[in-house]
């Protein structure tokens, strides 16, 4: 690390020594993208205020002439550097050897103005529009028109006259304009117009991009860097001293004869395009460049889809990969170590060994930041409340493992988020209060960590719960285990910690809306540290952070690699290859066969996954119902105990007669009935293991009775027509599941379409080989376009929260794979009709 600092220091000295040397200035030509105006104020300022000279450069500006191809000018060495539109991204992708050095305008000033009578862009069809040729520079405007379904062929393009006269004289209905120039002219001449800005419609195009040749970036990387830094400095100066720079333009660069007012107007508009309070001037966001590239590609401006990488288009200073500013570099030299406080009880963010060495997620992220930036950190693990006090007193420099909160923002600046964790409700494994979501916490006791501000924030919303504030996590666990608290809030680490300290009795019961977002907080007078951390985090990238998260939190990849399947698959492959080589069959057939096998194996694996998902859902449904059963029976039990007391009391006082006894018995039989209902549900979700003989009639009537209550409340009439004792062999609970899915879908569609006299018919027909169960509704049927898709996985017409889109898919799988039957659907006169065809077994003597 010291070497790096010495190197940085040397670099700094070198830069300083160069600036003192005005003997040998490098002469460079900068091709502008338009005539002289405030658009290039930063570059004028860099030249006139001597910023270029300080770094050994002498820059000459070349004004734009009509039909200048800027990229070509630079590539043919008529200019060394160029300023251009986003179109240079397309040029690069189309094979031009250029590199982007800096971006100045975060938005393009190009807008569309229309006559007052054109209220929406859809009105522009067959209208005259000036300056809207189908060129790459107009992509923002066409992108916007596309949102109104107006294509380039729908408008009449009038070549631009470079004045606004035709618009004012209403010879054209609309024209392209720059917010920086024409708008000022229009306003000044009192013209009436409507303005349509592509930015409003989501356009994100860079403008005024500094670029040069790839050769220049390879042969003179430090010159590129100097050109970039001095230009940025020029822009900083120009925006802070608009009047002065406008005066300078008037005096030296006013080839367009603009007025002082026009230039000041332009300056103001340009500040809104550079957004110096939002972005570091000159910075290039590679994601944004990629978005622009994608847009060009979609619009057909990228000719050949070669594999050029967006990353390589952006110039990087090799000696300064993070593009640290001078201020930041000096900060690093002046602050050899930043001490951050952290919570010693927060594994695995922080792991404290016996000899005081701190490791864990935070330590690893911080060491990566050090590696990249040269800024060193020390983690001080202690009591979290004390650490916060120390940070306030500045005996330490800030906090790690903290969330961004108003209270902490009073004394700390926060970096970008370096880890996000879902907040959850934690209960003991048996979850005695049966807490399933945040609503269930009402009336219960929640234990939270005293100094955990996220928990506090959630707790403050829980006015109907009792909040118990405890000193540490162990106490929270103890309170829950001893029944002094019913739930706590947690995140990814809580169960990890519980298991680690020997309390493997807890589970995540439900997810909360909140996520825990952690950022590094640094004392307020050190903003440089925050920007260094942010630049480093950005360079580390989300994927790398996720990798580290997985490592420390033992989070598994969601989808595990199926090694057995892979081995089988590989075996099949090798076998096939050997056989085919041996027989010397032609390659083409081999390929087709292989492809088919791959697809089959993949499909099998996918189907297996879905089935497992379905089964695990059923198991958890079973568990849930068991919990509901328990919860349900408690009040029933209390009702019966009240009957007990009433009975006793009436007997004692001699008031008890037959009628009272009859009514008390009625209450008892009702509570028994209610208690049994829940068992019916439970049986439905039971996972039968062995195939058995069953009567279709029984399964159908049980399925209907599961949904009976809701049919009734939705006024749906259900008619069954099953004559015989149709006997089947298989898994009755699976068939029941399928029937419930289909009946439920019918019910949903009948209610959502508000069908009058809603009705579902269930019938069974017998043929020589099959029984066919048909379930038909009168809801009008399935739309033609989607009827082929209803059995596809993840296809759903229901709102996301109501359906997974797996119901019918799984049903089909159950019927076809497990019951060896067929499931199909067709539209009838009145609605949809689902048919389940099951193999008929030989009639057995049932007696």
């Amino acid at each position: 690390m010291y070497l790096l600092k010495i190197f940085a220091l040397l670099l700094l000295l070198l830069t300083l020594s160069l600036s003192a040397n005005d003997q040998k200035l490098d002469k460079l030509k900068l091709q502008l993208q338009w005539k002289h105006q405030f658009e290039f104020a930063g570059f004028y300022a860099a030249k006139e205020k001597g910023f270029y000279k300080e770094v050994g450069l002498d820059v000459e500006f070349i004004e734009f002439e009509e039909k200048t191809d800027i990229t070509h000018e630079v590539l043919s060495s008529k200019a060394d550097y160029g300023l251009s539109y986003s179109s240079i991204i397309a040029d690069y992708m189309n094979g031009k050897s250029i590199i982007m050095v800096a971006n100045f305008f975060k938005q393009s000033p190009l807008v569309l103005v229309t006559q007052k009578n054109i209220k929406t862009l859809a009105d522009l069809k067959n209208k005259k529009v000036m300056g809207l040729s189908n060129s790459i520079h107009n992509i923002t405007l066409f992108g916007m028109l596309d949102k109104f379904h107006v294509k380039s062929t729908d408008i009449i393009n009038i070549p631009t006259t470079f004045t606004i006269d035709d618009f004012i004289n209403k010879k054209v209905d609309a024209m392209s304009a720059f917010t920086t120039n024409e708008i000022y002219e229009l306003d000044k001449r009192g013209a009436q117009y409507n303005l349509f800005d592509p930015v409003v419609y989501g356009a994100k195009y860079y403008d005024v991009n500094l670029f040069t040749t790839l050769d220049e970036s390879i042969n003179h990387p430090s010159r590129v860097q100097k050109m970039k830094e001095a230009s940025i400095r020029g822009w900083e100066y120009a925006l802070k001293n608009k009047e002065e720079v406008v005066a300078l333009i008037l005096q030296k660069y006013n080839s367009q004869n603009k007025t002082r007012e026009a230039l000041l107007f332009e300056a103001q508009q340009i500040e809104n395009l550079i957004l110096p309070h939002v972005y570091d001037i000159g910075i290039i966001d590679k994601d944004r460049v990629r978005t622009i590239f994608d847009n060009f590609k979609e619009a057909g401006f990228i000719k050949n889809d070669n594999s050029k990488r967006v990353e390589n288009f952006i110039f990087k200073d090799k000696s300064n990969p993070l593009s640290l500013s001078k201020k930041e570099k000096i900060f690093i030299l002046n602050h050899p170590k930043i001490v951050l406080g952290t919570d010693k009880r927060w594994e695995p963010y922080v792991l404290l060994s016996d000899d005081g060495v701190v490791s864990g997620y935070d330590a690893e992220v911080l060491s990566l930041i050090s590696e990249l930036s040269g800024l060193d950190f020390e983690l001080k693990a202690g009591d979290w409340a004390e650490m916060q006090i120390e940070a306030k007193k500045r005996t330490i420099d800030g906090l790690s493992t903290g969330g961004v909160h108003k209270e902490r923002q009073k004394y700390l600046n926060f970096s970008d988020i370096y880890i996000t964790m879902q907040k959850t409700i934690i209960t003991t494994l048996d979850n005695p209060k049966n807490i399933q979501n945040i609503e269930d916490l009402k009336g219960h006791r929640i234990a939270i960590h005293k100094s955990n501000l996220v928990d506090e924030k959630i707790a403050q919303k829980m006015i109907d719960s009792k909040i118990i504030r405890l000193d540490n996590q162990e106490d929270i666990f103890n309170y829950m285990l001893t029944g002094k608290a019913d739930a706590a809030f947690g995140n990814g680490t809580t169960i990890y910690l519980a298991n680690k300290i020997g309390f493997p009795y807890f589970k995540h019961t439900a997810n909360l809306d909140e996520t825990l977002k952690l950022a590094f907080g640094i004392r307020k007078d050190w903003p440089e540290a925050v920007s260094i951390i942010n630049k480093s985090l950005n360079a580390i990238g989300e994927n790398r952070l996720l990798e580290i998260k997985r490592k420390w939190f033992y989070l598994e990849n969601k989808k595990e690699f199926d090694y057995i399947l892979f081995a089988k698959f590989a075996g099949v492959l090798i076998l096939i290859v050997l056989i085919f080589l041996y027989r010397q069959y032609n390659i083409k057939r081999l390929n087709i066969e292989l492809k088919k096998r791959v697809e089959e194996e993949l499909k099998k694996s996918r189907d297996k996954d879905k089935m497992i998902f379905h089964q695990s859902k059923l198991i958890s449904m079973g568990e849930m119902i068991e919990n509901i059963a328990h919860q349900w029976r408690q009040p029933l039990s209390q009702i019966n105990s009240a009957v007990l007391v009433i009975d006793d009391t009436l007997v004692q006082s001699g008031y008890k007669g037959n009628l009272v006894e009859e009514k008390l018995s009625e209450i008892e039989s009702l509570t028994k009935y209610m208690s049994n209902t829940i068992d019916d549900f439970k049986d439905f979700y039971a996972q039968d293991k062995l195939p058995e003989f069953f009567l279709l009639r029984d399964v159908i009537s049980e399925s209907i009775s599961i949904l009976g209550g809701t049919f009734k409340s939705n006024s749906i009439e259900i008619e069954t027509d099953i004559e015989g004792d149709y006997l089947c062999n298989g898994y009755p609970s699976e068939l029941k599941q399928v029937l419930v899915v289909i009946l439920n879908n019918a019910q949903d569609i009948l209610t959502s379409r508000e069908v009058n006299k809603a009705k579902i018919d269930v019938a069974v027909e017998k043929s020589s080989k099959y029984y066919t169960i048909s379930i038909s509704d009168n809801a009008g049927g399935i739309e033609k376009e989607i009827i082929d898709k209803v059995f596809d996985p993840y296809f759903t017409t229901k709102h996301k929260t109501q359906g997974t889109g797996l119901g019918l898919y799984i049903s089909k799988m159950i019927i076809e794979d497990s019951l060896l039957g067929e499931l199909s659907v067709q539209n009838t006169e009145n609605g949809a009709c689902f048919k389940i065809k099951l193999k008929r077994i030989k009639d057995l003597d049932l007696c």
Partner: protein
Amino acid sequence: MNKENHTILYIEDEEGTRVNVARSLRLKYVSVLEAKDGLEGYQLYRENSIDLIITDLLMPNMGGIEFIRKIRDEGSEIPVIVMSAYSNQKKLHEAEELNIVEYVIKPISRTRLKEVLEIGFQSIRVK
């Protein structure tokens, strides 16, 4: 009405049910001790001479299974009736292993309560 000379320990965490059932039991038996969980029940078991125990299963601090196991480990053969809202097989089997008289699922009717109490006391007489 003459009360039967028995002491019953009744363990139930839901206060509403516990108060009602205990009140009714007291009309018939000389002594009915109430506990709100296994831990409290165990305390009362240690301090008193008890003839019959009625217990719930799922309770804070110490559940029914744990409580029965504890007293069985100490050699107690007091008849135990389990009254639980759980109807799942696993809980039932666990309880049966611990030599209980009867496993009844809540809600329980007056007749059923009378029945299991009789069975419970019968098992004392048999011994």
